[in-house]
């Protein structure tokens, strides 16, 4: 894409959250064949990958055309939504980052958390596709090289260890803030170096192969769930589904709710189960429970819509 037009900037930069959600909503259901292929062979069958990219582009174009048929354009108003899908189609001209993310996840794609892993890969891949489309890669690479001694200095000061730290820590908000603070303090007149944490993060995203977008972008916590309407019904579904778990899955799920204490170890010791087996059953229990609760929520939505 190279130079972005104003409509592209509106969707791919200013309103990226809306755009990515919309694009992923369309392409995610199309990726199953590719996921199966990677789960089987460690890499996608080339014909299946090409077919996925082609189907994704066609599905996006169908949505674009359907919207464009019914929308006008008013002066000064936001660009019509069809232009978001036009920008999305251009992104799929270079879908390699999405492919790389899926390949890197490997067998996790078809594991117990498969759907969440696939979603995360597609989201991170799309984010990288957007960066590749919108950035002047050569100049940004120069800036990235200039950031290296700063990162090395900060790693030394803070005791960060690239080889040991979890990627979540390596690219955390604290790291981005430390880099941005350092640039503002030591290079106050240099406008090429990133001066805001989000801008630093964009360099990690673009240049670090093991970067992935933090999960909290779409995730909710306990306090969020308590804000949802009819919260007690949600809890009732959870408890009904817990009651339907077969044993030992139900008991193991109950034990797994204890986090960061010795309950799991004590349980394994008491019943003579290895921790590996415990976690294997726990993963299965969580998958069964998720399927049950999410199935009930979906059925409830369909029933209420009637």
């Amino acid at each position, binding site marked *: 894409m190279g130079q972005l037009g104003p409509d592209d900037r509106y969707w791919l930069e200013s309103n990226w959250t809306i755009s990515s959600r919309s694009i992923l909503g369309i392409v995610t259901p199309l990726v199953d064949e590719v996921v199966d292929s990677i789960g089987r062979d460690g890499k996608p069958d080339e014909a299946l990958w090409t077919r996925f990219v082609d189907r994704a582009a066609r599905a996006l174009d169908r949505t674009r055309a359907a919207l464009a048929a019914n929308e006008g354009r008013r002066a000064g108003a936001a660009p019509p939504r069809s232009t978001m899908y036009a920008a999305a189609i251009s992104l799929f001209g270079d879908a390699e980052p999405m492919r790389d993310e899926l390949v890197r996840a490997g067998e996790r794609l078809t594991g117990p958390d498969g759907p969440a892993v696939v979603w995360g890969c597609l989201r991170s891949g799309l984010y990288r596709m957007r960066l590749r489309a919108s950035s002047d890669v050569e100049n940004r690479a120069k800036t990235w090289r200039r950031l290296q001694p700063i990162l090395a200095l900060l790693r030394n000061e803070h005791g960060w260890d690239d080889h040991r730290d979890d990627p979540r820590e390596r690219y955390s908000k604290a790291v981005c803030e430390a880099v941005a603070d350092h640039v503002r303090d030591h290079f106050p007149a240099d406008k090429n170096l990133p001066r805001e944490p989000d801008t630093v993060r964009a360099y990690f995203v673009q240049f670090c192969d093991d970067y992935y977008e933090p999960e909290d972008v779409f995730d909710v916590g306990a*306090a969020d769930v308590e804000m949802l309407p009819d919260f007690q019904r949600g809890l009732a579904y959870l408890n009904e589904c817990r009651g339907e778990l077969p044993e030992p899955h139900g008991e193991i799920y109950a034990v797994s709710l204890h*986090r960061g204490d010795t309950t799991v170890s004590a349980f394994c010791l008491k019943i003579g189960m290895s921790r590996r087996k415990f976690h294997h059953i726990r993963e299965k229990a969580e998958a069964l429970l998720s399927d049950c609760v999410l199935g009930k929520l979906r059925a409830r939505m369909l029933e209420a819509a009637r």
Partner: protein
Amino acid sequence: MKISEAQALAEILNRQHETLEEAEIAELEPRLADYARGAPWRDDDAARVWASPSARRAYLGARRAVLAELEMRWADRRFDRSFVRMAADDGDPDELVLGEAGVTVRIVRAPGSGDWLVSVALSPDALALIPAGTGVRIADSGGVTWLSGLPDRDGGVDAFWDRDESPMTRLRTHSLTLGFV
């Protein structure tokens, strides 16, 4: 620490895939903004918010903005939001009252059963700030929710303490914060 049922539910919701079409979400978003400001929920829309991550995200974003505004007004009136057991409140009393301005939190052991009851009482001024449909939540610095619910017309919310550890013991190491839900 054992995670709460709400946290367990959150972990399940975070595995959910999108179930609504883009056009459905776009049509729903204006109504979600109304619900965030206290409009009564339509049954089908409430179900959609549970079944669609995008709808949920849109609603929670709008709702957080409304609650942030309420917190600002609460702070302007200098009503209490943080509650700490003073070192002077030593021992293991059967009753403790925390807070003064706008809200009090009372923790009392029921005679006979020995169950602990947690009560929040809002002053009329404080209650008047809270929009219809907005509840209060008391949580501690360790992430445990002590009480959550809609205030009654006198500004009261009650809950029984349901953990093994005594609330008095927990208050020695944790502070309480009032939030809105």
